[in-house]
């Protein structure tokens, strides 16, 4: 503080300014610092430990910390099982995203207009979201039973296959998640059922945010209904759409509990995704590979979320 005499008055005012500042940001800092410290240790600190673990050769329970750099990552990406898991993850995410966006938009579009019954249907579509993945997974395990009526033991067929057969659509029966190539898409069905309602709520809010004047103006200018949507409504909805993609996308990347609840064995090849593989490796004491898969998942989720955060913070500044 002790500056040259000529600047005394100036520094005094800075001092009192800083003092005033402490008064404003001091309590705030005090309030958030426990969180910062805890998050620092238990989130970022453990991420660091995890990354460090993923670069060791600890593939058994035997303690070992020899540094092997990125070897585990190279080996994983060359591994057919991990490639299969990544392919499954992409397939799951595409189907899950497409399903929730299409159904979510359709329902929002239908509900946007009528005055009656909206609250009722909105609740109906939103309720599945209140159920936990584990609880709904137990039910869907039964619904997605792979047994088909024309197969060995077919008299015990249950769930969707039995339903399809009894309404005369028996040819639509299939093995659901047991199919080694497309089985993971069956897992997306319950996921869509649970979250399409949420996307609908997002779109409904988006529709509500579009002032009626815009539509009226467009109509007066001679827009057809399609042109109205194409040039007026859709552009207004794109931020909502982006939020939906980010939220559903990162849920899909991390999806573990639903798969675990529907498929009895975590080590089931047909529905293996990195999250389940991470668990299998962990149970098998392959801590290095497990940590490496965890890190890859983290990076994948970050690739989705970080650009979004950057985008929204820029939007807010504007």
């Amino acid at each position, binding site marked *: 503080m002790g500056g040259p005499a000529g600047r005394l008055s100036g520094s005094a005012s800075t001092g009192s300014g800083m003092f005033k500042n402490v008064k404003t940001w001091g309590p705030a800092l005090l309030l958030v610092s426990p969180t910062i410290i805890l998050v620092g240790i238990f989130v970022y600190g453990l991420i660091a430990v995890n990354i460090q673990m993923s670069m060791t050769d600890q593939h058994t329970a035997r303690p070992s910390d020899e540094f092997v750099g990125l070897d585990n990552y190279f080996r994983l990406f060359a591994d057919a099982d991990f490639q299969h898991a990544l392919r499954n993850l992409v397939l799951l995410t595409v189907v899950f995203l497409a399903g929730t966006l299409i159904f979510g938009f359709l329902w929002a579009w239908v509900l946007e207009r009528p005055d009656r019954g909206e609250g009722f249907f909105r609740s109906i579509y939103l309720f599945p979201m209140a159920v936990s993945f584990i609880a709904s997974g137990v039910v869907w395990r039964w619904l997605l039973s792979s047994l088909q009526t024309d197969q060995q033991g077919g008299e*015990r067929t249950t769930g969707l296959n039995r339903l399809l057969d009894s309404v005369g659509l028996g040819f639509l029966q299939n093995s659901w998640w047991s199919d080694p190539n497309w089985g993971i898409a069956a897992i997306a069905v319950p996921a869509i059922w649970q979250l399409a309602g949420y996307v609908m709520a997002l779109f409904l809010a988006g529709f509500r945010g579009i002032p009626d004047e815009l539509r009226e103006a467009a109509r007066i200018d001679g827009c057809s209904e399609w042109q109205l949507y194409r040039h007026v409504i859709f552009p207004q909805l794109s931020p909502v759409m982006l939020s939906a993609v980010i939220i559903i996308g990162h849920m899909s990347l991390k999806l573990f509990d639903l798969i675990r609840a529907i498929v009895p064995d975590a080590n089931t090849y047909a529905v293996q995704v990195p999250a389940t593989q991470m668990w299998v490796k962990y149970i098998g004491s392959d801590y290095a590979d497990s940590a490496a898969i965890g890190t890859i998942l983290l990076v994948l989720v970050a690739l989705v979320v970080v650009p979004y955060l950057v985008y929204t913070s820029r939007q807010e500044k504007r």
Partner: protein
Amino acid sequence: MRHLPKLALAAAVGLTLAGCGGGDTATEADPESATGQVGIFTWWADGSEKAGLDALVEVFNQQHENLEFENLAVAGGAGSQAKSVLAANLQSGNPPDSFQAHAGAELQDYIDADQIEDLSSFYEEQALADVFPSSLMENLTVDGQIYSVPSNVHRSNVVWSSVEVLEDAGIDPSTAPADLDAWIADMEKVKAAGKTPLALAGSWTQVHLFENILLSSLGPEAYSGLWNGGTDWNSAEVTAAIEDYDKVLGFTNSDRDSLSDWAPATQLVEDGAAAYNVMGDWAQAKFEQDGKVAGEDYVYWPVPGTDGVFNYLADSFTLPKGAPNPGGTLAWLQTISSPEGQTAFNKAKGSIPARTDADPADFSEYQQSAMEDFKSDTIAPSLAHGAAVPIAWLNELSTAVNQFSTSGDVAALQSAAAASAEKFAQ
């Protein structure tokens, strides 16, 4: 933040060192003068397993009045939950006084990690080599040392059959098929009669079936060779065995992957929906529980082609390095290896004693026949239950076997299994 991994590492190293300290004399602790609590870690938390543990604790309290049994059981997931808890405790240098583990190769991880003590001197003191079958002793011995004491033995290679379904298909339920081919011919008949020939469930039960078909097709010696490097996984015999497995798999219920555990598959036999189920002898307890009568409702025999072979799995107990009360641990090991302890435990759990000198009169009809076989048969180690290979190897094989369930690609299964063997066999 950059220093955190180093800190964590330093802490881990410190704990490991602390864990090692004083471990040298643990096996020389005196079980007679030990006092205090003995913490025993198991996954025996309910059902017949809990009943067995309770019976064992009763014997323990009689034999060692100065000691107090502390139950550290962790429930859930057929031991998988318990194993993760245990791994964490061992890693942080906080071992129980003794923990349950499958006897055999599954212990390898703990041995490699230097987490359990050699119990050879305990075996000598108790003269256990005289009462355990020699082939079991061979299976338990790793580089001349023994690390665990078996409490009970289960048999893996048992077929449970529905009398009703077999009679409907015109098959005599009282005699077992002579070999695998005869059995497959019988399955053909069941299929023609419109029932599911063989009931099967998800992943580990498929590994269970796989090991028994390998055992039947290759014979006990070549089968054991698969795990110790004596048999070439790429050989034509193994190809033939996997083709047999493929054939047998074709007779199973097609929703096998969606059955969550062994019990729903065994239930199909009980309900008369399927003819056969290959399952360990813990299935006996289920049949009894559901009021079924052996010989009338169901029959059992060794998997065809494995007569005279006892495909074993066993639970066993260890002495962890750095156990807080090693004298208490040895007292516990004394109890579980004593005739009284083994009889009390196995009577309740439905398995059989590892000791061959237990009195058969104390046991049920099935147990008596299994005890008879255990004495005279060749002992083979079970793959699916930790006796044959370490966990990491088993995991890889499980993935390959499960993949086969949908792909049916014999060559892929064989090459995957061969690659795993090359990676893990010592």
